[in-house]
């Protein structure tokens, strides 16, 4: 079952997010209050590892397990990056969670975050509805 590998990746990601307390509202507040290196170090080291890995993938033309070429789509700028970004940030500081942590928190026992997750789905849905009327 090919999907098993994605389940495993998710489990590892969720485990690491939780054990590193990256899903904690307190840690996110600490970050926005500039009171700890923890979240900055976490994100920056993740990006550095990610950057190095993509560089190596491109440099050595690494292929997938099934021999397909690895092609990463570029991100095209639009004003949603800014406006949506700020809106996301507002919500992030309120819930103390971005999407990954929302899922992890539910698993970790903060069950009220199911409501947060449903609200996030609702927010996504409303975006889809209003999309054509929003500046991009």
């Amino acid at each position, binding site marked *: 079952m090919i*999907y098993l590998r*994605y389940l495993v990746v*998710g*489990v*590892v*990601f*969720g485990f*690491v*997010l*939780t054990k*590193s307390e*990256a899903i904690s509202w*307190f840690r996110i507040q600490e970050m*926005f209050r500039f*009171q700890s*290196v923890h979240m900055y*170090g*976490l*994100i920056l*080291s993740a*990006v550095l*590892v*990610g950057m190095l*890995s*993509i560089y190596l*993938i491109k440099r050595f033309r*690494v292929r*997938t397990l099934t021999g397909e070429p690895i092609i*990463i789509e570029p*991100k095209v700028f*639009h004003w949603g*990056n800014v406006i949506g*970004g*700020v*809106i*996301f940030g507002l*919500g992030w*500081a*309120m819930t*103390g*969670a*971005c*999407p*990954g942590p929302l*899922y*992890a928190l539910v*698993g*970790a*026992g903060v*069950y*009220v975050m199911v*409501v947060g997750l449903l*609200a*996030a*789905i609702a*927010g*996504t849905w409303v*975006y*889809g*509805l209003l999309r054509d009327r929003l500046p991009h």
Partner: protein
Amino acid sequence: MTEFLSRPLPWYVAGPLIGLMVPLLLKIGNKPFGISSSLRHICAACVPGRVAFFRYDWKKELWNLVLVAGIVIGGALGGIVFRNPDPVRISPVAQSQLSTLGVNNQGGLHPIEVFNFESLLSPRGFILIVVGGFLVGFGARYAGGCTSGHSIMGMSNLQWPSLVASCSFFAGGLLMTWVILPRILGL
């Protein structure tokens, strides 16, 4: 073994492990690391309505839905089975700033006095959880990604729109933390 797995992960271990999600997903299936798209796939699968944005072959993205199901399991493993026996320790300055705003750290991941089912019936709880969650979902889709898709995946691929998005995430968070949140917590 249990004791070993129950230890909290420092950032210099967790960060690189999270960074490795990028090449891992590329290697196993040329998939871009990103989580907020799952919210879109859930909409497409469950409530597409007549909204064009949700009319696409979401089944092709099933891998992403499986992944986020895995995150829930990972959260259970990390937060319950192998949970950290010690309370979350944040800086004393942050702790006292939050106490002044009425939020006390009882050692859990989230302040349980604010994040519980009963508090949904209070303005403070409703706003933080429902409005907050809504803004996360709306904002992430509008931005075209969240901290995983933009800040980690996008920046790893040197995509400047992702840097712009990440700065915007941060700006929004700062605005909320310093200006708006104190008012919400005072409700």
